[in-house]
């Protein structure tokens, strides 16, 4: 404990050395730090010391304390996990961590394009590589996450079309639906479009009925939250366009080594989350959102996010970067800007750039194909188990797929509890999110799963449901 005779010198606080403090106080003519708070009225002053836990002043003791708490977690690396649904366990190449843990990137923030040239270039390269993946010319500096990207993409569509109604596939996950509902409540009227019970895809007849000259946008995901591929994406885009509406597609970029980029079948705005591109799951801490469009002024001017562009400098051949159309942002014009912009998830954008640079076209194609092969294998294996139907939708799947357990007579919660006893994290329980799917779970299989992992799951499940 600090006492007047032996005050603590805090390693993070250079001027906590008493002699230095006294010198500085003398320089500014203050008797004590209290003088600086002269404007804080007495009734607003905290009389007592804050009631906080006793600290661990030494770095070792602190580390031991926090590691002790973290030790109570059991991770997806220690167990075998098939959880997905918005966060997935892909392999993170070592170079991704090496770069995003460098202090030069980790502690940079808002420097000018001169002193932070590297940050601007790394983010410009991220958007450029995403542009190749998406076959679109404009990609934003990351927003918070895929939820925000979808909600903003829809509000962009509302502003671009001057219409208020958005039609959204009901297969969008309930958490994202909640976000969109909140975010659009005074800007748009949301209608949820039902899905085809057999394929999971949008019910095209219901869509046709819902479309009108009030429709600003039609939104669906490909691959969907429930894992299936929306095979009618091209028709949906055509239907939207026929009514003067925009087609907005949510896409996990990791699928685009094998799946056609949505822009190629008519998407006007594409959005999603980049967690899969080199970010650890981090209990939901690896998310960042992208929004992409073609390079058309009426679209560009509706982005709230920062957009970094390349520009020449006064030295021939030197690359400079800067904010494109800054005047549209809340940084420039406060509430007159488009929505708002602030600190979001830039470091994950840089990391996703590193990931795409490492993977290259070949890596993305192999990874996508490998994920689809493993997911399909897993579905085949699970489907062999009595009472288990996998995949529940008759459609191609990318990484996730719905597994139905109705005929086993056992609820997913119980099955997952039994799997957990064998150190297996079973698929995400959908029984509350999509009651119409009965006792179903969303299984996620990626390139990290070996055949033995999948076989182990299948055997465990077989034993659990057939016992």
């Amino acid at each position: 404990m600090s006492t007047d005779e032996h005050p603590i010198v805090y390693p993070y606080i250079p001027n906590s050395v008493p002699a230095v403090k006294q010198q500085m106080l003398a320089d500014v003519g203050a008797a004590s730090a209290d003088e600086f708070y002269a404007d804080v009225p007495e009734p607003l002053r905290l009389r007592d010391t804050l009631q906080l836990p006793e600290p661990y002043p030494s770095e070792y003791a602190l580390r031991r304390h926090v590691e002790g708490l973290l030790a109570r977690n059991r991770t997806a690396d220690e167990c075998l996990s098939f959880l997905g649904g918005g966060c997935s366990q892909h392999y993170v190449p070592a170079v991704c961590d090496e770069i995003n843990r460098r202090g030069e990137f980790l502690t940079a923030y808002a420097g000018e394009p001169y002193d932070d040239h590297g940050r601007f270039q790394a983010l410009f390269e991220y958007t450029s590589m995403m542009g190749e993946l998406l076959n679109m010319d404009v990609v934003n500096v990351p927003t918070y996450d895929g939820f925000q990207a979808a909600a903003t993409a829809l509000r962009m569509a509302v502003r671009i079309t001057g219409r208020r109604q958005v039609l959204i596939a009901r297969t969008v996950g309930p958490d994202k639906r909640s976000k969109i509902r909140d975010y659009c409540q005074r800007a748009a009227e949301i209608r949820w479009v039902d899905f085809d019970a057999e394929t999971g895809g949008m019910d095209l007849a219901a869509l046709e009925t819902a479309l009108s000259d009030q429709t600003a946008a039609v939104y669906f995901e490909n691959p969907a939250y429930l894992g299936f591929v929306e095979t009618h994406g091209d028709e949906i885009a055509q239907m939207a366009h026929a009514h003067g509406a925009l087609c907005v597609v949510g896409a996990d970029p990791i699928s685009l080594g094998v799946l056609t980029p949505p822009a190629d079948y008519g998407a006007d705005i594409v959005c999603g989350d980049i967690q899969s591109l080199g970010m650890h799951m981090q209990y939901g801490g690896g998310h960042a959102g992208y929004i992409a469009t073609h390079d058309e002024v009426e679209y560009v001017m509706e982005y709230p996010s920062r957009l970094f562009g390349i520009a020449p400098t006064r030295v021939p051949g030197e690359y400079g970067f800067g904010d494109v159309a800054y005047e549209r942002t809340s940084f420039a014009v406060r509430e007159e800007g488009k929505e708002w912009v602030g600190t979001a998830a830039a470091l994950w954008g840089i990391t996703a750039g590193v990931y795409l640079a490492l993977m290259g076209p070949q890596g993305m194609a192999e990874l996508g194909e490998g994920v689809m092969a493993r997911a399909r294998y897993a579905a085949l294996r699970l489907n062999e188990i009595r009472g288990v139907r996998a995949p529940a939708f008759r459609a191609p799947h990318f990484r996730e797929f719905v597994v139905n357990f109705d005929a086993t007579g056992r609820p997913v919660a119980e099955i997952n509890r039994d799997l957990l006893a064998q150190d297996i994290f079973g698929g995400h329980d959908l029984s509350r999110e999509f009651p119409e799917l009965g006792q179903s779970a969303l299984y996620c299989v990626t390139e990290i799963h070996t055949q033995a992992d999948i076989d182990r799951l299948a055997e465990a499940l077989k034993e659990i449901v057939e016992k």
Partner: protein
Amino acid sequence: MTPEMTQDITAHRYTDGKPNLRRFHQARWDEPIIFELSQTGQRGVLVPEVEPGIREAVGDALADLPPYLRRATPPALPELSQPEVLRHYVRLSQENLGADLNIEIGQGTCTMKYSPKVNDQLAASPKLTPLHPRQDEATVQGILEIMYRFEQMLKEISGLACFSLQPAAGSAAIYANVAMIRAYHAERGEAEQRDEIITTIFSHPSNAACARTAGFKVVTLYPDADGYPDLDALQAAVSERTAGLMITNPEDTGIFNPRIAEFVQVVHDAGGLCAYDQANANGILGITRAREAGFDLCHFNLHKTFSSPHGCGGPGGGACGVTEALARFLPVPTVAFDGERYHLDYDRPDSVGKLRPFYGYAPVIVRAYAWVMSLGAAGLREVAEVAVLNNNYLLHKMLEIPGLSAPYAPGRRRIEQVRYSWEALAQETGVHSEELGLRAADFGVHYWTSHHPFVVPEPCTLEPTESFSKREIDEYAAIMAHVAEEARTDPDLVRAAPHCSTIHTIDHTPLDDPARWAMTWRAYRKKARDGA
């Protein structure tokens, strides 16, 4: 010994006993855009092969796809070997001036304090990074306990009753607070009537922008001679249409508004709620709180006050706190503790709903928790007092520079930052604040003017936090004094800055010209080709 060895190698550091500025030059790698480095066939990392057993069972994994959905042309990503990717990005990393490198005093309002390395290591723990957010709660008791404990700390630091750590960053927390204000009035049947949010011009732009995004009209108050709006201005602004007040205290001027409790009362009397933007609470930790001033809501930025690094612009972390009366509106889920187990409470029917996937940026929360646990109550108070001492010391040094002033409330002490004005220098020399900042970059420091609009003419905003030593503060002030003097003696040198940075003066005109702007390399190549 040669004659050279007898010379004092440190001699250049001082002239007449006074320290000279450092002879800085930033890294300049002239690094190509990564696509220029591509070499067909190179691989940066190999992906796990599909095993023969799977291959045999599955056949063509893409066979089910309709032909139009099977990507026909591979994405034109660059092809590089792993060491080339690494070197490229390490070079880019060197071309930054983050808080680990520079005396990061010039990014006022952003609280660019030291981010302890041990906390980065804890955040990268293999017991945290591979946690899936949907895992059974029994397997995530460690991270949930950290979140719960950290919420208890924020409750004590703010005096408010309940917290959510879900918002992704500061502005997202501001938005969450606006959403809760909207939900509160909607429940009382006053959603239509109460359609105005009052804020101040020195509050962060997101207070105004988030309010507008949530559907409110924005009423902005301007400062009087004291640096904050007078009470009469607020009285005139409130009405039965007032939904709430979003305000910072101290604002960017660093002047604490002593009548803040009266402000809150005026808004409460009109039926509105009050949200305290405490993105930057650094100077008042343990001194004064949201509760005592009567606020209904507040928010903190974990990447400012609570030391998590800024990551080139995120991920950061936002935390919003509310009174007991508003607790049920907090976003879902909240972290709960039943005395034995921690769990996520989704059963909150009045909640504004989800704001982001899952629950908060866990690694940021771990860092913030560890930071508080390294300091405790006495340490937090030391943070505040030293941050404020540093600021007033810097103010004292800066005001010795001719041509610089600290507008508003002359002679009064400031809390954790000051918005200065170079108006007099600009009038004398024609050199603008922004140009001074770019020249300062030649001495290895970052500098920022202020948010727009420039209510203070020729502004700069300095915030020394608790993380910089007296020597470093002296160095920063000396750089400012030197650059200001250069504006008089050699204004063209200043205007042409930076000279010792990675690059030189950028031609910004393409960035506002749709025919020439390029947000991706492919767009640049197309436009360059078409232009040629």
